[in-house]
């Protein structure tokens, strides 16, 4: 394909803010008509950044945002509901801090889908598209671009920083799929809670002084003699390398970017508030990245697949975990960033109503809870409901497509847009591009 809008071309399109127009340029003009017919901008498209907290394994809805005190013992479990700041709304007992700031957050209790295994559930929630073939539980599949990769594709990098971060690892379907490797997340595997933490490769290697690096840079410029073919039609893959070197030099030289990584520079009090654990410090790092202009950050938190011993495990984990999230939201709010930052907390599905023999709950995609805050999301909102025993979403039943469309619209990305695979096959970014209106502010 000569005028493929992938790779270098697409990137340069973005820089001129012409992504949409050129994206359609590769084929019939008629496609453009379709694209234009679903107009993008939404009044609440105000999120500059999104922090997506992924609870890998599928967090229970019962023990978090959707307690069912009236259900029989084998369903309601060991925890009690607690009142929140919002009259009439209850969370489960170990979300005390989030309950105290419920006026700043919204909860969707009625997302329902049909993908009950990790591979498929992750794909559906992470991309807004169900996997197009049945996939196994252990699957890591990528048929469609993830929210983060698509945001990177639309926004491009800022201040020399990559546009999409994933920490400490990429989620199963968090990749760019057919958008191409340049939209893959920049993975920061290290533990920011460790005193030796540094983000690899974004700063000069230890022992190499700046002066020597500068002279290496000069040498490189002088010795790089491979001819480039500037005519775009020739498809010279080397052209993009030059851009990447420039971007990399910028990143190393940008005080703003380097500062963002230095979670150690943060006030000890703030570090304590976030929690002196890997997740806490990652959330703090995410806030710093948002400050530096990074549009999408995923925190991939493992260990929410509670098939057994759910109650002791959550009793231990939830308090520190919710403390970090509450701190993040309050911190963003105090810094005046919450209005432009979307915080999302979710996993691949909810969990079974009946507690199993091992004292756990299994996979359950008929009901799940998703938390959102910021970027114009009206606080104190609860969208939808499950039935009395939490078996299924019954009121205002919503789909992963509605969820993805909401995130995209808040980020100013048109979820109804048509995107193209490298083979030129069109695909809706989200097949049902209706957002959750209650959350659009």
């Amino acid at each position, binding site marked *: 394909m000569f005028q493929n809008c992938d790779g270098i071309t697409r990137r340069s399109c973005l820089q001129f803010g012409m992504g949409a127009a050129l994206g359609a340029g590769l*084929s019939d003009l008629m496609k453009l008509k379709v694209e234009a017919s679903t107009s993008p901008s939404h009044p609440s498209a105000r999120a500059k950044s999104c922090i997506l907290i992924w609870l890998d394994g599928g967090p229970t809805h019962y023990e978090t945002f959707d307690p069912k005190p009236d259900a029989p013992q084998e369903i309601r479990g060991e925890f009690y509901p607690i009142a929140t700041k919002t009259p009439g709304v209850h969370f489960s007992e170990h979300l005390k801090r989030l309950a105290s700031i419920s006026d700043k957050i919204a909860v969707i209790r009625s997302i329902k889908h049909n993908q009950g295994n990790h591979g498929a559930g992750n794909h559906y929630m992470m991309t807004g598209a169900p996997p197009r073939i049945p996939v196994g539980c252990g699957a*890591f599949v990528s048929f469609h671009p993830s929210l983060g990769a698509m945001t990177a594709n639309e926004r491009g990098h800022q201040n020399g920083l990559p546009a999409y971060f994933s920490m400490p690892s990429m989620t199963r379907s968090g990749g760019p799929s057919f958008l191409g490797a340049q939209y893959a997340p920049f993975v920061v595997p290290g533990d920011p809670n460790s005193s030796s933490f540094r983000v*690899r490769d974004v700063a000069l290697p230890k022992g190499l002084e700046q002066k020597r690096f500068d002279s290496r840079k000069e040498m490189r410029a002088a010795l790089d003699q491979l001819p480039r073919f500037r005519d775009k039609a020739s498809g010279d893959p080397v052209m993009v390398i030059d851009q990447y070197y420039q971007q990399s030099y910028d990143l190393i030289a940008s005080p703003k970017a380097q500062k963002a990584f230095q979670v150690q520079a943060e006030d000890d009090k703030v570090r304590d508030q976030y929690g002196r654990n890997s997740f806490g410090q990652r959330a703090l790092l995410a806030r710093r990245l948002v400050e530096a202009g990074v549009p999408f950050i995923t925190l991939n938190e493992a260990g929410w697949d509670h098939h057994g011993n759910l109650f002791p495990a959550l009793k231990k984990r939830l308090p520190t975990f919710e403390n970090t999230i509450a701190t993040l939201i309050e911190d963003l709010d105090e810094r005046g960033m919450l209005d432009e930052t979307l915080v999302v907390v979710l996993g691949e599905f909810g969990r079974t109503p009946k507690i199993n023999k091992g004292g756990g709950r299994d996979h359950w995609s008929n009901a799940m809870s998703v938390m959102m805050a910021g970027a114009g999301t009206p606080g104190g909102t609860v969208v939808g409901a499950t039935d009395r025993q939490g078996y299924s979403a019954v009121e205002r039943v919503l789909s992963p497509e509605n969820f993805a469309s909401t995130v995209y619209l808040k980020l100013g990305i048109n979820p109804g847009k*048509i995107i193209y695979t490298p083979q030129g096959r069109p695909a809706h970014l989200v097949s049902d591009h209706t957002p959750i209106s209650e959350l659009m502010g």
Partner: protein
Amino acid sequence: MNVIRLTPACCLLIFLVVGIVLSDCANGFTEPIKKTSDEKPIDFERDIQPVLSRFACNSGPCHGKQRGQNGFQLSLLGFDSNFDHDAMVKQSRGRRIFFTRPEASLILAKPAGDLPHGGGVLFTQSDPGYHLLLRWIKQGAPRSQPGTPQLERVTVDPQAKIFQHNETASLKVTAYYADGSTRDVTNWATYQSNESPIAAVNEHGKVTAGTITGEAAIMARYSGHFAIFTASVPLTKKVPAEYYANLPRNNEIDDRVWETLKKLRLRASDPATDHKFLRRVYIDIIGRLPTSDEAREFLKDVSPQKREHLVDKLLADPEYAEHWANKWADLLRPNPYHVGIKTTLNYDRWIRGAFRKNQPYDEFVYDLITANGSTFREGNVTLYRDRRKPDELATIVSQVFLGVRLECAKCHHHPFEVYGQDDFYSFAAYFAKIGRKGTGISAPISGSEEFIFTSDKGSVKHPLTKAVMQPRPLYGEAEEIKPETDPRVALAQWMTSPKNHYFAQTMANRIWKDLMGHGLVEPVDDLRATNPPTNAALLNTLAEYFVREKFDVKKVIKFITLSHAYSLSSIPNDNNKIDTRYFSRHYRQRLRGEVLLDSICQITGVPESFTAMAPHSRAKELWTHRISSLFLDAYARPDPNQDPPCERISEPTVVQTLHLMNSQQLAQKITSDKGRAAELTKSDATASKIIEELYLSIYARYPTKKEIKVTTDLFKKEGADRRKITEDIMWALLNTPEFVYKD
């Protein structure tokens, strides 16, 4: 043709360009359907389905999608007429059709714009499509008419044409029925160009060439049948015939490549220099750069056969097997957390063993398909430990070895292919009698032994009809399955037969892509009429050669590397800079992660230390992607969790750039006291000797005079540290595209 209902699990692929039709279809049919057909009985499948396809009602983004649109669902692209007739006539208590007032039927009022319609206004009341639907309702909306002949095939006329820039041509599509009758269905067919910028097509079959040089395949589809038209758009400026007659020809490959260039009026680039050839064949055949000594040896050789000698030497090198097995491992090797560590290791060893003894490719595949035995002893049975269901096996085996992607046909009729669910499950039935004994998959460890054997039980059922399927090949004829034998034997014979063109073509295309930077068919494992090769004659030549040489992979590599086409320069001329797939020049390729890492270790003189591997092991020898390597991760080796077959992404990323620039590990290699830079600077080598050494080991060429001047001057600067300067130049050269790319 089998008519298949869409299952809920079907693809959400949004097929076709159907979106196009939505907004603009009311305008003129020059030739309405014959007026006499007013009285003629209308058959749903023959007459109405084409209308639904023509207006894209049954397309992926509209009512053809998984759950339909607003409750109204049609089978994707109309492969299931019973289902579609039901949906239109009976579902929703028949509210979509009003027999008492046919004009008010929802299926007319909505697309005609009388009622709001999410898909917009598709036709006016004067449109022939509207009239057909209306007459059909007036006739009682019958499912079928007795005696309606079956559609047998469609043709497109002409089948190929060479276009001037911006020239147009009209296609004529004819449907042939079993009773010998024909119909002109030009206005009812749907069209798609695989390269719209080269030649676009509109809904009336009018083809318009652009100003870009190349070929486009235009598919005309009508009622589940399709025909292909090839549009060639050559450059406008004529090239004298002698030009092509005088191009060098080393073997048949050159004949085929020059034929295509002649057709498109493209000129070939100049031949590449010796050192470029040297670097290419080392990378391509043994997966690393030549050492400085190896480079010197070749460059000083004056024998006219030196290229052939080098290719022979490299093909005989043990590193050949490791490099090519490493590529195959991407296609076959599963996640050890799924099948077990020992099992994965055995499989890896089996794949490497095949390349080490240069096992003929047909035998390799035969042994894999018919594998039986213990997962602790026989590496090839891992395929059957990893893929446990006949449908999973059907998908991977057809894709990897035959270039046939059957995934679609699992759930509905393949939209661009002749395969339906019947074909899929009949093919899957070859894997019905695989017995398994021992410990099955017990993720995440799966450590125990399992035995794969031929069972006397097992069957594959059609998911909808529940019929037990008899094994049947996807195309052509297969041997009958003898009683008491495993159906896989008959399958393997059919697959690896010299008569099975897809088998040889798929592998030939893979090898071609590895060496030439672009497949003749892309993606390499998607061979079908609707995705034609950019040079079909060449693909045939390669496949025939492969068969003639008894499936010897090395022979094909030699055939390609000794062609003149392989050794063309990558530097375009004015005429061929727009060519990115007809091989008028060499296409640059980023080196594979393993090639880069092994080459860096060789250049710096500091080997990598891998866990679970012997000391001094090379990256291309790793038996699983689970062995950690930041470098290989950055350079896009497959995710260890991804199921094979894995295709690698070759586009560069900023992560790669950052890693090459700043990685602590790489910095240590360059500055190591035991490394090459330290060794060179300790020796009594002159500055220009050091530079020569670096250039030969990194670029496989001698430095130019200017390069020697620039670099040796650095050594002469006041206070210059000989070792640091050497290290810095090494870093600089490793960070240039001339190192990272095969040029």
